[in-house]
């Protein structure tokens, strides 16, 4: 017989006579010591909580306290509003456009690549190669990536030159690695692999029997995808989109190398922090950071909910 007392007693040494006595009849006998013990156990987490408060919670809360003050230190929403005017609004709009673009590209191509890898039978190592490479490339953002794309698609880039020889002047129009299409191309380098990692388990969850059932009922491949495949994948795709959006919205290093202007939100925050602004204006930088945290929290929360839903089909 399992000692049912264990369900409220966290430590093995507590599974003893009192537990058996109280197991059926309630907690009154064992409860007081268990409460006391629990409190002591929580004390063991004090270093961790203290550390996290000091170096994560305090800075995060400070962002808001810095953003919600006016010049005289009074509570005010002015900076939060100012974060959505003029060049700041442009930065938000720019960030949203290229983040949504790169998230969309990442979701579509990442899902196709994951599907291609999951269903490929021929070279057996292909699937492993794709997953291992994705694990690496999803973390490959930052400086080296920006420089690698400068050598490929920069003004002096190799591909730029090859395309020019072929008659397509890449830089004839408004193209630039720091503009929306350019950033989408560069960010795809880590967004696509990230999506592969997110979506591969969901694609593995698509069961062959569903396809057979669909075919038996007279459905075509198109019917299968429209009625079964995509609806099952939908939470993963939505969650993936939000995660990718958040990922690209908050990335700093890559864009820092590729654009000289502070045209995106993270660079704009850094511009305000840099201190070349009028007194009192630094609160606008904190307000931008506060909005960024709000956007992140919204995206990540929906991502967790979507992920939970996606897991429903896995067994």
């Amino acid at each position, binding site marked *: 017989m399992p000692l049912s007392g264990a369900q409220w007693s966290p*430590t093995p040494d507590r599974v003893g006579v009192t537990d058996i006595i109280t197991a059926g009849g309630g907690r009154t006998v064992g409860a007081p010591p268990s409460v006391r013990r629990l409190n002591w156990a929580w004390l*063991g*987490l004090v270093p*961790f909580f203290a*550390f*996290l408060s000091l*170096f*994560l919670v305090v*800075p*995060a809360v*400070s962002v808001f306290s*810095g953003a919600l003050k006016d010049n005289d230190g009074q509570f005010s929403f002015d900076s939060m509003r100012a974060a959505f005017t003029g060049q700041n609004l442009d930065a938000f709009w720019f960030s949203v456009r290229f983040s949504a673009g790169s998230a969309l590209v990442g979701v579509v*191509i990442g899902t*196709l*690549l994951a*599907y*291609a890898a999951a*269903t490929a039978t021929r070279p057996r190592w292909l*699937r492993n190669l794709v997953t*291992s490479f994705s*694990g*690496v*490339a*999803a*973390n490959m953002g*930052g*400086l*080296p*990536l920006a*420089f*690698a794309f400068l*050598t490929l698609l920069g003004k*002096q880039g*190799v591909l*730029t*030159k090859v395309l020019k020889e072929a008659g397509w002047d890449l830089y004839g129009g408004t193209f630039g690695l720091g503009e929306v299409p350019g950033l989408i191309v560069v960010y*795809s*380098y880590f967004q696509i692999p*990230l999506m592969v*990692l997110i979506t591969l*388990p969901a694609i*593995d969850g698509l069961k062959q029997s569903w*396809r057979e059932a669909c*075919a038996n009922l007279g459905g075509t491949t198109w019917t*299968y995808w429209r009625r079964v495949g995509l609806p099952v994948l939908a939470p993963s795709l939505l969650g993936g989109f939000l995660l990718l959006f958040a*990922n*690209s919205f*908050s*990335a*700093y*290093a890559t864009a*820092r190398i590729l654009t000289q202007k502070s045209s995106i939100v*993270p660079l704009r*925050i*850094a511009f305000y*922090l840099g201190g070349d602004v009028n007194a009192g204006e630094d609160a606008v*930088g904190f307000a*931008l*950071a506060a909005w960024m945290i709000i956007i*992140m929290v919204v995206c990540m929360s929906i991502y967790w909910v979507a992920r939970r839903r996606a897991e429903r089909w896995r067994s």
Partner: protein
Amino acid sequence: MTDHIVHVLPELEGPPTAPTVTSPRPVGKPRTRFARLVPNTVIIVCGLFFMLPLLTLARFSLQNVPTILLGSSTLFKKWSLSGLTKAFSAPGFGEALTLSLQLAAGTVVLTLGLLLPTAIWVHMRLPRARSLIEFLTVLPYMIPAIALVAGIFVIKPHARWFLNSDFSLVPFYVVLALPFTYRSLDAGLRAIDLRTLVDASRSLGAGWLTTLRTVIVPNLRTSIISASFLTAAVVIGEFTIADTLLKETLPRFQATYVGREPQAGYGLNLLALLLTVGLFVALSVLTKKRDRKGASFALRMKKSMKSGLETTP
């Protein structure tokens, strides 16, 4: 890398998923020659997209020919490895590398010193706190590095004595790496039967420190090494905080050096990239090895005991 790492290391949680054996072919339809056309095209195009930037970065690092002059006649000229090593003797490189390595070491030590006892404590004494701790460790996803640094600027006037030191970066790097490191240690603890190991060790008369040193740590070796590698990879590539707080770490040197010495700068970035890739590859090899070996001895014992109990009437 990595002011943006968010990815969830799936291979760290539990055993790897079995390779799919499903065929993409719908039942009742003959496989056409073009059935794999779209997937194969996707794979080839993606392969090209992922290889090309690395190849051109390597070309700029190893070949000293301006792109303007690049053509069939100059394609194989002036290749040398000097572009990779030149940065080592550049002024400022040694200091930047030393600082980054010190920061990495400090971050690894603080991470392990803080998280290992916490994770063990949670598994031993407070399983009910597990989801709370898990939630807290993914908080850094919601507060990206650039927002964290904004917060640091708000408190800066009160903490100048601390933030003036280069090593004030260490705790913030611990926070940035937290989602990976905790997950790695937690997965390791889940894979062993911690309580039985500890009880056995304690009943043989070992104290807590001896238990930690001779029983728990050896059983968590793979997890500890992965956590350390991940931390090192995060620290060595971190640019956002170092850049805004003006700390001269390796990534900041990488960023400015390209402007002064393009070829050597690209070479240095290529090396940094290879180092990161190397760390991640080593990591996945390690994790695979652990998965192949299967669960620890203690867990296997527990399983066999359980199945033994179930078969007895």
